[in-house]
């Protein structure tokens, strides 16, 4: 297993946001995590990136215990996240945002990767000199994704990439996710948009108030009566 989460708990003060999570992601897999607002999805990704401390349990990445590793060391290992709300560097140019995505890397292949990102998201090439804050929500989402890709992810964590986007942009984002998977990137996708996420996922987990309550293949979850009722509005 590439990523193994065992009994992971996390708190905000006395609130227990994660209560003993067990999740595993294999190399090359696209695994979806779905759940209602407030279930703990973002907290889990924050713990995986090391920006929120675990209060119990362990996270292993490629066999190594990373539970207490600093965020920048996890980036070095190839764990990159596209956070909820994009978190682009608004006053910096689109191009600088991409360069900062490669902050832990050095060497000439950074320029080649920037060109690759511009091919993947042509709108970013057009806006390369503009402050990131002037982009639309969908464009910022693409920038956040491209910025994470600049870090050469082995494991890409996506937190609700479709949130607040028009349907046509949602489709574009999900196409990009599928393409990344095809190229071999391992992806852990968090979504409230359960239908879209489970439809492209190899496997999925359902999170409720900090606990995993269901896990199966993406297709099986899509057809699961409980999932349909609770998350697909069917």
């Amino acid at each position, binding site marked *: 297993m590439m990523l193994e989460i065992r009994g992971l708990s996390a708190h905000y003060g006395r609130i227990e946001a994660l209560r003993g999570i067990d999740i595993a992601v294999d190399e090359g897999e696209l695994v979806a995590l779905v759940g209602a607002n407030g279930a703990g999805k973002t907290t889990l990704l924050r713990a995986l990136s090391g920006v929120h401390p675990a209060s119990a349990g362990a996270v292993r990445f490629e066999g190594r215990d990373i539970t207490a590793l600093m965020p*920048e060391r996890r980036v070095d290992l190839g764990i*990159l*996240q596209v*956070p909820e709300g994009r978190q682009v*560097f608004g006053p*910096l140019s689109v191009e600088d945002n991409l360069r*900062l995505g490669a*902050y832990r890397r050095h060497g000439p292949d950074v320029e080649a990767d920037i060109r690759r990102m511009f091919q993947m998201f042509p709108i970013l090439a057009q806006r390369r000199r503009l402050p990131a*804050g002037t982009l639309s929500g969908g464009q910022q989402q693409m920038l956040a994704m491209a910025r*994470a890709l600049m870090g050469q992810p082995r494991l890409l964590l996506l937190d609700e990439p479709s949130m607040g986007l028009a349907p046509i942009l949602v489709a574009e984002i999900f196409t990009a996710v599928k393409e990344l998977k095809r190229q071999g990137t391992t992806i852990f996708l968090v979504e409230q948009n359960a239908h879209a996420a489970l439809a492209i996922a190899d496997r999925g987990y359902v999170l409720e108030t900090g606990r995993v309550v269901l896990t199966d293949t993406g297709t099986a979850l899509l057809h699961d009566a409980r999932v349909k009722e609770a998350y697909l509005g069917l």
Partner: protein
Amino acid sequence: MTSTFLQFLFSGLTLGAIYALAGLGFSIIYNASHVINFAQGEFLMIGAMATVSLVGLGLPLELAIPLAVAIAAAVGVALARFAVVPAGDASVVTVIIITIGASILLRGVAQVVWDKEFHALPAFSGTVPISVLGATMLPQSLWVMGVSLAAILALGWFFGRTMAGKAMLAVSYSRLGAQLVGVPIRRVLLTSFALSAGLGAIGGIVVAPITFTSYEAGVMLGLKGFSAAVLGGLGNGLGAVLGGLVVGIAEAMSAGYLSSAYKDATAFVIILVVLFFLPNGLLGHKGSERV
């Protein structure tokens, strides 16, 4: 009439340059941590007092100054490392109170290490006044303005052109975003204190031949630097420079045309006016950015 005005203007620009450096120090630390470091003025004092001591030990100025700047930077890093970092996730207000405590401590230590006397540094290139358009100016004023300008340009280059500088700015634009691309935010915090302290020390040193220095010299310099930073919009580098010049010129004009008793009051009036009418400063963003 115009020559008196010019006279006041020169003295205002000289003071303003120092307030600009102090204000930049506030802004750099604010950007890295959202902390307002009320020990900023002490960095100016430490730079000047350390230079006085080193010169007293027989070191030439060109050696004493870089050494004193390094000492101030080291004090800045120590302050961050042993007082700010351990506060961890404590509220910003808590950390601000810690920096106020640190400033009192640093003044106390300065009193013990040095003394309570006023000290002057020798002027860098003599004290023969230069006359400009009927007004006169000390050569040291040119040093103050020139060195400040060079420091400001170097800082502009660092934050505008280097990846290390942009990464520090990124922390202020989105702390989470910066962490997620692997910017080590603790090192950014330490660097911001080193930079602010070094910058403050430079300001304190170049102005010391004009204003004298003592263990208490940092109090007023710090407050005026703070009003410069607030006037320009906290966290805005260009704003801090403009704010510094405005505070300096306002101070020199009120001292010259009204009474030198109002000299220090000017900065306080400016802080109050800004807080009431321009809460985001001259160049600050309107409303709240990034939600």
